[in-house]
């Protein structure tokens, strides 16, 4: 925990530069131990996620980097997003789980709280983040966000305006849905 605080100012840069920067401060050993524990945490989250078998959500680390995951969520039943599937990218900071991962939509998603670049406005990914959350809860939250948007503070005003008319909205979703092959 102390290590994390020491590295506070550098937390946004990637772990490698972090190590270099901190080398002068003679805490590289502590840093590696820390990275080790992040790895362990992500590892066990992956295992838990794989074993949980929750329908409609999934994520997996990219080939050689456990800090970068690809996620998949499918629209829940009885929502306008039913039958669609969205790819996400999750990138974990080096001080995860004390900082929230960056989660973005890779597939275009017509949603009040998702902007055109795929950025998501979700409280638990910003100020309400807690280290008790994990990949599984993030994915579940994003999945439920699809069906229950917060139209009061939209990133996509058009979507927020259209939300009232579910039939039209569904047509819009279908029109804009471009699954990644």
């Amino acid at each position, binding site marked *: 925990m102390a290590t994390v605080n020491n590295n506070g100012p550098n937390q946004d840069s990637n772990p490698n530069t972090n190590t270099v920067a901190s080398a002068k401060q003679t805490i590289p050993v502590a840093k590696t131990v820390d990275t080790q524990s992040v790895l362990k945490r992500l*590892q066990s989250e*992956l*295992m838990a*996620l*794989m*074993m949980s*078998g929750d329908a409609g959500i*999934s*994520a*997996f*680390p990219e*080939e*050689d980097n*456990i800090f970068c*995951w*690809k*996620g*998949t969520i499918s629209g829940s039943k009885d929502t306008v997003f039913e039958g669609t599937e969205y*790819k996400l990218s999750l990138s974990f900071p080096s001080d995860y789980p004390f900082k929230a991962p960056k989660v973005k939509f890779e597939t275009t998603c017509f949603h009040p709280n998702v902007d055109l670049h795929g950025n998501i406005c979700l409280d638990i990914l910003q100020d309400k983040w807690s280290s008790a959350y994990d990949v599984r809860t993030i994915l579940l939250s994003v999945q439920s966000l699809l069906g229950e948007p917060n139209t009061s503070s939209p990133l996509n005003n058009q979507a927020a305006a259209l939300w009232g008319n579910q039939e039209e909205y569904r047509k819009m979703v279908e029109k804009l849905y471009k699954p*990644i*092959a």
Partner: protein
Amino acid sequence: MEESSSSMCNFSVLESMNEKSIGEMEDSWNAFCLATEALHGGDGDLSFASDFVAHVRVLCSLGLESLIVEHFLCSMEETFEKNGASKFWKHFDAYTNPAVLEMDDADQQQELQDVLHRALEELSSEKQYQEKCLLMLVHALDMCRQSKSKEQTYSDAERNHLFSKYQLTVFSVLMASLPRHFPDVLHCYFKGRLEELSAMMATNCENENGLQENDGMDLDYKGREMDIDETHHQIANLGNNKLIRNIGVVVRDLRNLGFTSMAEDAYASAIFLLLKAKVHELAGDEFRFSILESIKGWIQAVPLQFLHALLAYLGDSKSNEIPASGQKSPLASHPSSRYYRTGTPPEGLVRWQLRLEYFAYETLQDLRIAKLFEIIVDYPDSSPAVEDLKQCLEYTGQHSKLVDSFIAALKYRLLTAGASTTDILHQYVSTIKALRTIDPAGVFLEAVGEPIREYLRGRKDTIKCIVTMLTDGAGGNPSGPGNTGDSLLEELNRDEENQENSSLDDDVNTDDKQTWINAQNWEPDPVEADPLKGGRHRRKVDILGMIVGIIGSKDQLVNEYRVMLAEKLLNKSDYDIDSEIRTLELLKIHFGESSMQKCEIMLNDLIDSKRTNTNIKATIKQQSQPVPDIGDEGLSLADLNATIISSNFWPPIQDEPLNIPGAVDQLLSDYANKFNEIKTPRKLLWKKNLGTVKLELQFEDRTLQFSVTPLHASIISQFQDQTSWTSKDLAAAVGVPVDILNRRIYFWINKGILAESVQDSGDHKFTLVDVLVEDGRTGVNNGGCEELLARDEDGESSVASVEDQLRKEMTVYEKFITGMLTNFGSMALDRIHNTLKMFCIGDPPYDKSLQQLQSFLGGLVAEERLELRDGMYFLKK
């Protein structure tokens, strides 16, 4: 001047002649023609020879020498065609039909022989007569030249030219009228003669060597290096042999007629045919004796003797043969009499020997390769045949033939659903042994072994069979005919013995120590290693390595062994684990100390259990002598032996809940308490469903003894107080699900102890059969009868099998695979493998080989959970 140019300018000579001399010449010419005709048609009557010479002289003086020669030859050719050739061929008219030749009876043979001899004799005498005539002409020409000038004689070159011309004429006349079947006639003749000779040799040898125990054909006392002296000695016996002489005459006559190559073809093919028949006769389906030497001996004794005698005869006989280089076949070993006369071994004979031996090797090799599958089935017994094959292959170098043919045989005969895994493994082991002999480099073994390994990998019980073979030595299925002869346990033992024997001190007492040393020194053998290197340190065949190679990693093998060992140890009631210790030590040599560690702990558990058990019983004896027996059935702790295991090191053990009779339960907890006293703070946790119960059932009329599982014992003990139970109640009382109870209770029903009846409610009711009903079905004898463990009957096992463990592991992998495919769409095998390796590091971590993963994915594809397109795996939607 005139004479020398006469051949070119006959007509100019004619022009320069006057009428009178032309008339004279005409007369002379006519007379010459008549004389020639008379001469050729004559029956050897040379009375008008002087006339002939006079005519020739007159004509010669007129410069008509070349014309004379031409005419003479022409007339000779005509006569030969009329008298010689057509008559000669007529002799063989009877053999136009090939079927006649194929007949094999002695009369036919004799007749053929006679006909050929007679025909050749006739033709030869005709030819000789004609040659005599030719000689006369030459003489006449010679004389008239000499009369003209002293210096000019008829030169040798001219004479040779004349004779070769005549020879050519004879040959062309014969060839032009050659009937199609004549080569067959010759072939048939030589074949008959050779067979005769072969039989004669056989009897000769029998006479010479009374020790021959076989059929007299076995001539293996004659080594390959049988020197020419001996051959000469044999020839001496044969030199006067009429048979050889007859053949010699025939060959010589044929040669003189220009049939050199045809004769050679005929006897060569007859020899090869005979050799082939001989090889087949000797080789047959008998793999237990080496026959190569006998064949070589036979080659020395028959065909080479024959050839030698033939060459000798031809060389000695005054042959006026003119080398007809054009007709010399490449096959022909031309009898070079020069060589022979100088006493050196005829080069032709050596070449013949090499050719015959190569042919014999090739024939034997083909024969053996075709039967290689059977040979390997018989393997240790058939090793002489394998040795033969090895030598043949070294000579011919046709290894690839072996590989192709053997793989085809394997695929057709062994790698089928009908063959049991054990049999395949046994055959594999034999193949390894046999092919290592033939091909030390292991290259062909690799090629041949691959299909077997590939196939075995696809079989589920391969590992189990290997482990059973390793430990039991009785093969995979205990009921089948266990082929103990070449079990892998033997192999283990043998390896160890070899190593012990080759070690420096052969002290029997250092057995364990030696094993240790060997264990540490063991190394896998390099594939290229030459087994012939060094006699004493002869390489052993690393069969285990090859077997492990089937599975890919020794870990799986060790795992399976662990499960099997656990099963075995748990079923033991007497702590006797000597054979297991031995096997384990042997396995340690091969698989290394560390990988067998868990197994060693298991065995140590057993040893400790024995000690602890004794300790506990000793304390009971000391402390609780006055205490009366626990329970009213006379049970005491003395009847209880516990196996105490360190479950962390054992394979997962099936844990079924089970209610055991109170008295026994009490006994168990007492035992556990004692254990706790001795081994504080350790506590004993019972696995009540495991173990063996020896029990005695007392009925009014009989007493029966059984060794059964605790569940069986619990079931039957419930009938002690209540003789009739419904399955539901009984299941509740015993504490197992009804279906398990129903399955297990059949043991007692089959023994005739319980009777089953179906009630109206559909519930089964079981009743104790108190009095033995003699219905013959039960087959239970009165008095004590020791039953074997009933556990194996229904295939229940106390230890989770390796397959179960594997399936559990694989479910984890499947989830990971589904996870990655969901997010990445499609992935190639390699990438899935690498990703699993990187991220699936739970317990147990992903440790499968690429092949295992591939077969697992193949299974998922077959279950339609995945899809495979262009080498990429997709999730099936």
